[in-house]
């Protein structure tokens, strides 16, 4: 079969072109470290990577949400534990004042103690996190409770609303991390204030009632605290899940996107070798013809 000179030159040019193309691809692979540089390298893998990137970004956002949630929950728990201490102390006072051996002057003094507790409770009920009141429902710019008078308190007015502040932890899930202050504190405030006025007015029957009321209120606070605990557990679980998922997604993304460096360098070396071989053989071939030998 006859092969024209022209064919040899054309074929050489063609093959060299293909080898340089391979060489170029291998170089790109090694220098970027990624096997997906254009959508056409692996269209399906490429779209999967895009989807994974979105998922990872969303999970990081959820992590930020849970971080905020935990701050709120911790602040609430701390405040309410202190409230429990106050209730216990108030009950002690009430118990000791309910007996017959107390008289009006002792009770008056005790009333001042209770007044002190009421003021403390007011400031605890107005706890703030990052400048926001956590017991005001969603009216976080408004002070939750205000006593009508510091000297002789008779009522505590709630100015928040009844929708608890929540954070989003998943597509359709929100967790309440704030509180409806009314439900938590109102009864407690009225019990403490009645105790105060009963002590001032030397009313032993009222003081007796106060002990029962304070017991009930203590239970309310306890159940609120355990509610906070439960939500804290949920958030911790969520955080673990997010960490695992995030890792999984990132691994998937790396598998699809990143080039195996060893393989890439091997390919690069092979392409270089092929290129050198092609160049030297073409050089030899193109020079020879019968003309040289005549």
């Amino acid at each position, binding site marked *: *079969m*006859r*092969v*024209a*000179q*022209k*064919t040899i030159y*054309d*074929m050489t040019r*063609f093959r060299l072109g293909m080898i340089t193309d391979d060489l170029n691809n291998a170089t790109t692979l090694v220098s970027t470290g*990624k096997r*997906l*540089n*254009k*959508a*056409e*390298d*692996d*269209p*399906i893998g*490429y*779209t999967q990577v*895009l*989807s994974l*990137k*979105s998922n990872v*970004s*969303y999970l*990081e*956002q*959820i992590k*930020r*949400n849970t971080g*905020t949630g935990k701050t709120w929950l911790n602040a609430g728990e701390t405040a309410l534990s202190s409230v429990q201490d106050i209730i216990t102390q108030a009950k002690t006072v009430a118990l000791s004042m309910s007996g017959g051996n107390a008289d009006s002057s002792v009770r008056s003094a005790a009333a001042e103690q209770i007044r002190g507790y009421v003021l403390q409770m007011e400031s605890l009920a107005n706890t703030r996190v*990052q*400048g*926001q009141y956590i017991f*005001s*429902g*969603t*009216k*976080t*710019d408004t002070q939750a409770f205000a006593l009508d008078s510091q000297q002789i308190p008779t009522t505590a007015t709630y100015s*928040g*609303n009844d*929708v608890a*502040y*929540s*954070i*989003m932890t998943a*597509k*359709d899930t*929100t967790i309440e991390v*704030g509180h409806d202050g009314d439900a938590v504190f109102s009864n407690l405030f009225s019990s403490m204030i009645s105790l105060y006025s009963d002590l001032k007015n030397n009313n032993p029957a009222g003081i007796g009632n106060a002990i029962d009321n304070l017991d009930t209120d203590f239970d309310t606070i306890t159940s609120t605290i355990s509610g906070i605990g439960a939500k804290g557990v949920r958030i911790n679980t969520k955080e673990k899940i997010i960490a695992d998922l995030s890792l999984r997604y990132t691994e998937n993304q790396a598998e699809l996107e990143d080039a195996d460096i060893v393989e890439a360098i091997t390919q690069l070396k092979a392409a270089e070798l092929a290129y050198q071989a092609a160049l030297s053989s073409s050089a030899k071939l193109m020079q020879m*013809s*019968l*003309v040289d030998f*005549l």
Partner: protein
Amino acid sequence: MDYTSDYEASKETSSYMNILETAFNENTENGINTIMSQFWNSWLDLSNNPTGSPERVAVYEKGVHIAERLDTLTNDLARIETDMNNEITAIISSVGTIAGQIAELNNTLIGQQSGNVSLDMMDRRNGLLYDLAKLVDINSFEQPDGSLSVLTAGGFNLVSGATSLSLTLSGGRVLWEGSMGSTVDITDKLTGGKIKGWLEMRDEIVTKYQAEVDSLAKEFIWAVNYQHSQGVGQQYADSAITGTYATDSSEMLNTLAFGHKIDYTEDFKMWVEDTSVSPSTFASVTTDMGLSSANPTYPGADSFTAAAGQTTYTITITNITGNGEANVDNIEFTWSESAGGLSGVENMNAATTVDIDGMDLTFAAGDLLVAGNTLKINTDGGGNDVAVSLTPSGTANSILDNYKFTVSSGGTVGTNTITVNWSNSFTTGSFTLDASTTTATVDGMTLTFAAGGRFATNDAFTIETDSTGSPTAYMMSDWHWTLDSFVTQFNADATVAGVGVTASKTSTDNITFTPGANEGIAFGDDQFTDSGLTAALGINTFFNGIDAQTISVNSVLVNKDYIAAAQIDAATGDYGVGDSRNATDIANIQHSTRSMAQWTYARGSDATSSVLNVSMANYYQTIIGTMGIKSAELSLTAEYKYEMMGRITEQRDNLSAVSLDEEMINLMKYQQAYTMASKLLSIGDEMLMTLINAK
């Protein structure tokens, strides 16, 4: 030669696909995928701290960012189109030049006799032919007189004998100039060469991705606006609010850009805060946005009394008692008539017929009528109702879209010539009816008009298409809402609710709500499902615009307090500034499934669309995926064609090209033969000399 044409076409399309991919930029942090994720995340950050100023600024900035990115993408795609047009212009003049050169060579070769043909010129002509094949697809035939005829695009002559014809580019279309001066548009018939690569890129690929990016942008704008319009910022608005979307001149609410998204089974609700007392009090105004359950019928024998001559009656339901049930409740109709300026008010009290200026409108018992609905009836010269009846059929090319029609020159169907202009989200067009034509084809749909109906100039109607492309027509003579009827109805509802806020329409067909003294206004609440009217009018919306190029953030939100992260408590009308429910609802949009159109463009036929029900992120990823697949396919095709070209060239060269070795051997053979022959000559010469010298 075919392979050359195909290879060049694939190579050009493939290299421009790379440029297209770069415009989308998805392997960097500037891709739309990443920016959209950041946008949704900024709403979640806001939900963690609704009163926080940096979080609000972040939401605003991310909104601006995505709007800008979409606009940049549109500009980049437009630039690719311009590049294509420039390349095509350059090519067309090259085609003309080469065709001219072939014709000249033909001229020289025709004259030569068969034995004396100049092979040099024939080679040159062949070379020119290959050059031409790279540019356009060609077929060539050798004629008996020695000339070469060259045709393109399946049968249009470029070279015939000694004459050449040329191509021109006009309005983006490639035209073939015939010898009589006529031109034929051959844009869709070119199937090879670089020009086909560019035309494919321009007319099929770039247009498809532009349409899909626009579909995504439109759905994105609507989804965010709808949810945002139902929330409230850090305060009620205490100054007038003007909507950012306008109707067309007919004022039909259907003609709003998102008019087809309005759900007329739901209502419109506004909350009004009275700040003259402390603490503020709240009241709500609700307007029932329903459409009456049936149109009236007009007895054929009856007619309007009005002045002689053609006129248009506008009839609005202005008041109902109870449920607005015909035959049970009292329904008040207010009518006016355009030619003579007559008007009046009629009541249909526990009846099914009402007399409007001499014409009895009849309803069926049990029909439910809604206050605020309006309709328009055209009459002929005798006062008879001649509302146009339209039956659309077929499948529209653009699904989930709103086609808006305006009559530019009116007349009676089946008698006069009527011209109608139409537009949808992607394209515009027009059609004409005349005495013999009462049907029209519009973008895949067939519109059949009943003869006898009359269109007045500037009449309007709309057609909405569902997810399968099925059209539904809404005529002026069907009950509908207009800006006027809504404004009137809202103001009536506001008065009943005892608030001072008023609605009005602007000269540009937008709506304005103005609070009364010491009043603030807000929209929606946590129990309310909105009809979508608020968002469609552009009230309390986050984005402006209708597609990837026009999207921008509502300028009202420069005051970041109006970014609506909270929802109003339906029980009280008040809300907490730490409420984040609207922000989380907006963030959740990224997970919701939406219906969007996927497009197919083919040169030579209409673009068609089909529905894809996926989340917006998935839709975008599908765009990138199909781009990648197309790109890979083109690369492979180009490689394959290149190899085939190589093979065939090899085979041709095996037959016709020169092998130096062969020629050298032949040369030696002839040289030896010559040497021997000359040897023979000298021997012969010697023999002769011997003879001559013999005595």
